[in-house]
């Protein structure tokens, strides 16, 4: 059954990303997600980006469903179910958070809860998400086009930072290729890593197999996976499954 929540505020974060605030009694953990249904349009998974009394979804416009969502305004309704899945596991280790694009939405509530330095990466400066959200800590910016901060890919900046500081764990969410690189770096340097993955989701509750990657269901076993699991995911960064369940290159 869906719960209907009312949008109380819409904040435009970047030219392609908006945050929708609402109230709901559920008590999500950082890294968990909800299924959002826009009746007559689509249903899709969305991480929780604010977990307090006032909650938020931070949504990047990528296709028909998210485009429709971007048209919604204060007072409009969302049909939601969740929270679903396994979120991040908080650790005492010295942490680096690495978010790419809308991946910052997933990481943000975790960053709110624990210390650590932050890398915010995006294609270009306008797309840097939540650059003002994390006060009182080191926030590194990276853009592919160099329009702000480090010029280059997130993993390149991460490699640099790992020379400067002894991070013991990396929390990451973003484009799969970025995460793949970061996981490889973590493996080679022997540091810990947790990554929140994205896959096509139909059911969201662990029965349809559409979100699976090498036998792991992103919707219930993840979306956050730990290092020992990530190392076993041969398809990560290489293959995904399409709507028909075909294994296709990323």
């Amino acid at each position, binding site marked *: 059954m869906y719960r209907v929540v009312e949008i109380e505020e819409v904040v435009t974060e970047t030219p392609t990303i908006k945050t929708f605030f609402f109230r709901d009694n559920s008590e999500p953990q950082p890294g968990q997600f909800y299924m959002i249904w826009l009746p007559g349009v689509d249903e899709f998974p969305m991480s929780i980006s604010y977990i307090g009394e006032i909650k938020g979804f931070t949504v990047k416009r990528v296709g028909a469903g998210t485009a429709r969502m971007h048209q919604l305004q204060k007072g409009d309704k969302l049909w939601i179910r969740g929270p679903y899945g396994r979120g991040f596991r908080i650790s005492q280790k010295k942490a680096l958070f690495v978010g790419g694009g809308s991946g910052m939405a997933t990481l943000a509530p975790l960053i709110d809860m624990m210390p650590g330095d932050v890398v915010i990466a995006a294609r270009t400066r306008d797309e840097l998400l939540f650059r003002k959200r994390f006060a009182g800590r080191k926030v590194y910016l990276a853009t592919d086009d160099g329009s702000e901060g480090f010029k280059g890919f997130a993993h390149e900046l991460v490699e640099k930072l790992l020379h400067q500081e002894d991070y013991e764990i990396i929390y990451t969410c973003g484009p799969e290729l970025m995460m793949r690189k970061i996981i490889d770096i973590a493996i080679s340097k022997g540091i810990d890593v947790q990554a929140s993955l994205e896959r096509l989701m*139909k059911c969201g509750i662990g029965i*349809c197999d559409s979100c699976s990657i090498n036998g792991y269901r992103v919707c219930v076993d993840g979306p956050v996976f730990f290092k020992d699991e990530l190392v076993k995911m041969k398809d990560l960064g290489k293959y995904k499954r399409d709507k028909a369940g075909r294994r296709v290159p990323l």
Partner: protein
Amino acid sequence: MLSFTLNGLRFKNPLILASGILDESGETMLKVIEHGAGGVVTKSIGRKPREGYENPVIYELPYGLLNAIGLANPGIENYGEEIKVAKKGGVPVIGSVFGSTVEGFVYLAKKMEEYGADAVELNLSCPHAKGYGMEVGTDIALVEEIVEGVKKEISIPVWAKITPNTENLVKIAKAVEGADALVLINTVKAMAIDIEAGMPVLSNKFGGLSGPCIKPIGVRAVYEVYREVEKPIIGVGGITYGRDAIEYLMAGATALQVGTAVYLRGIEVFSLIAKEMEEWMEKHGYAHFTELIGLAQVR
């Protein structure tokens, strides 16, 4: 206490993964096998890749699930690798197929055999796909032809999965008696409307009801058919705890399939149910589960 042989296939327990649940990819089936499934049935596979219906395709109810996945599947030509991977699990892998003609079913069944499937399950019963499933499965002459056509062309066992959405259950069961085993039931045709949205929840509007709420329908179907056909029956519909499994056995099932319970109790549901069955049997002095088959039949 739980291992047995059916159609010449060796199962370590009678708890088989039902078609359509966590069985699109070989690796996921392996995971299910690791968690104790005695066998796995693949998702129903068709001739061509199918994306299925748009989301929402699933709806959670307090006592079960409503789904209209829409027979999404990668297509038979892309499915060999998945069977190969699943077979590494060391338990029987049953290839489920759906079609609308005898030739279609035969083609798919032969491919499954070629890929190494241990048996084929004919989906004659999906309640929400136009031109397939129960639309085929309530045409008594056609189902008989399909079963016979497939039987002639392959040498691995053939299971026929039939629909409860009919007044002719026993007639259909008799029509498919040429199969090596009968599987019942598939989901019950149903729908849900979200009153706040003022529209059906599933994008396909209609879907199939599964889980605990259909158990009394499934038990009835098994009980009714058991007395009319000679072939083994595989019971499915709402099996969630050991006591549900025993109820189906007593109604006349020889083996069982488990679907929605994976959602209700997690992927470890197979070993949980197996353990519950063993505990119950020990307490009640049964040495092997086959002693329970048909026990509740009143003649």
